[in-house]
């Protein structure tokens, strides 16, 4: 049982990175980033490429992943979403645009990196034994780095000027604009930041699990589940949702065979949302 708790905590921390990115983008721009899973996959592939093919080590891999995803985020925001958000008559247009960007990113990844599944050795080798539970050093490293990233993100949002601007925009876009916040610049920042978080998550996890170009959709769905659970657009909600999913997954995989785990998770989610549509901490209808 303790093993399940540890596994759940590690998964939860990494999922938190993903959920935070998605919820940030949703909070700032009102767009559900369908491409989030693909951004995660891209982060994983870039890390693999830099570490394994170019042989430049983990730090360079992280840096490359972050930079790549930030650039992708900036391009998406500037060329796709900025125009669509201004012109769209219905909100479905931006949603479909997001779905289109997901497909685009997935196709580009397929063309650039091929369809083979790629993996990497864990970042640190060895296993620790803590309170009767086995913790592979690689997973512990992932946990710590993810923790650092999440804490850094929260500190950034709470205590820096750009962070305050982002939070203001999330609260009320019009009033923020009236107060002189440059909405365009901060939308770009928000999107890039969200994408970067997805990239870090991907880069971290490629050392634990393999990554392949088709993984994007299922990762996106996991991110959606977390955001739906915790409440869209709320940072604490995203983290809570992430840990709930992490633990549920760990529990499921330990005691229930096969892919029934996610079936049960979905059924529970649908029931939960029927009772409380806004998630645990969300605002009604966002």
């Amino acid at each position, binding site marked *: 049982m303790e093993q399940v708790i540890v596994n759940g905590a590690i998964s939860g921390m990494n999922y938190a990175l993903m959920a935070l990115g998605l919820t940030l983008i949703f909070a700032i721009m009102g767009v559900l980033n369908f491409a989030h899973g693909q951004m995660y996959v891209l982060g994983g592939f870039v890390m693999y490429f830099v570490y394994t093919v170019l042989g430049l080590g983990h730090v360079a891999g992280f840096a490359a992943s972050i930079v790549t995803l930030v650039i992708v985020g900036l391009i998406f925001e500037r060329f796709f979403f900025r125009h669509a958000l201004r012109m769209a008559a219905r909100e*479905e247009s931006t949603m479909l645009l997001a779905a*289109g960007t997901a*497909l685009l990113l*997935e196709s580009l990844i397929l063309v650039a990196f091929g369809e083979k599944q790629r993996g990497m050795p864990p970042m640190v080798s060895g296993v620790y034994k803590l309170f009767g539970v086995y913790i592979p050093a690689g997973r512990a490293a992932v946990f710590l780095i993810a923790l650092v990233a999440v804490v850094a993100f929260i500190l950034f949002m709470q205590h820096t000027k750009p962070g305050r601007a982002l939070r203001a925009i999330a609260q009320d876009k019009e009033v923020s604009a009236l107060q002189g916040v440059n909405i365009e610049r901060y939308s770009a920042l928000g999107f890039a930041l969200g994408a970067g978080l997805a990239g870090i998550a991907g880069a971290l996890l490629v050392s634990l699990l393999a990554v392949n170009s088709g993984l994007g*959709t299922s990762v996106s*769905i996991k991110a959606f589940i977390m955001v*739906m659970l915790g409440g869209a657009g709320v940072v604490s909600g995203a983290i809570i949702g992430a840990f709930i999913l992490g633990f549920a997954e760990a529990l499921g995989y330990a005691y229930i065979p096969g892919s029934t785990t996610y079936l049960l998770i979905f059924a529970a989610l649908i029931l939960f949302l029927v009772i409380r549509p806004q998630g645990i901490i969300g605002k009604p209808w966002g």
Partner: protein
Amino acid sequence: MSRGLLRPLAGAGLALLALVYLVLLPVYFSHSPYILRVVSIASVLSVISLGVWLTFAIGRINIGQAAFALIGGYATAILSTRFGLSYWLCLPLSGILAALVGTVLGFGILRLRGVYFAMITLSLTEAVRLAFLNGGEFTGGASGIPIIPLPGELSLFGVVLMPSFQTVNTHLAFYYLAAALLIVTLAVVWRIGTSRLGWIFRSLQQNEDLATSIGIDIARYRVMAYAICCFFGGIGGSYFAVSQQSIYPNVFGVPDSIFFILYCFLGGLAYVAGPVVGTFILFIGFQILHPLQEYQQLIYAVLMIAIMLWLPNGLLSLRWHTRADRAELARLEGREARS
């Protein structure tokens, strides 16, 4: 062109389209199974997309239609292989079963709106796929249910209404089945649109609270629209099960759900014919791109984004502005500017 000429011209255009679709194309290509298949599949995908169009008409973004197509497919598969029912019974039953599941789920999830509804229907697509994957013996697991029999003979009181699909040109038979499904679905959806029910649905789309205040039972009508949508999804899935003669969990997935919405969008959400136009153009376009292999998906994605950026109201919203239209518009704008 004056207004007076437009209506008979539209009627003639429609008649010509029907002639091509029902007579010329199938006869000319009766021995090219590939072309017949492509048009048949496009027809049935249009049926499924018309269901999604209906949920748009009540103001919801339904990314879950693939789930109901899968339910319909499995229903047909199980009813025909395990219970030996004739396909002509399986077809409506699959639709009804999908509608029932939609009704039960709908009462719960239709209170959500916007992005939330979209997210939960997306999860529904995955959940249903997983359900069938883990159905054990009953649903055949990952390999699904193979060897679904072709539609047999349908006869009433000794009169043969429909010959067994094995005895005739099978591809042609499926083509006409698909065409029949599309025409009936179009007629039904169009009739709904022009009836009181359609009027109620439109009021739901515009403002649910206002609709409640004038006495419309929004919960009931929402579920009704959603159930009809799921019915069409189920029927479409049933067709695919019998035409591919097999069904497995990955036949309809998340990308398909998204494509159905895209088809509606390309054609234009304001028009009943929108999903049909969108489906035919995009599906046939996708087939044409097939030789490009790995770039196929890439080009498709670029196309999708281009459509969303530049044609957010769909193709059918592009109007051929005659000089008379432009003069009218200018006059109206002038009048507005003065008041």
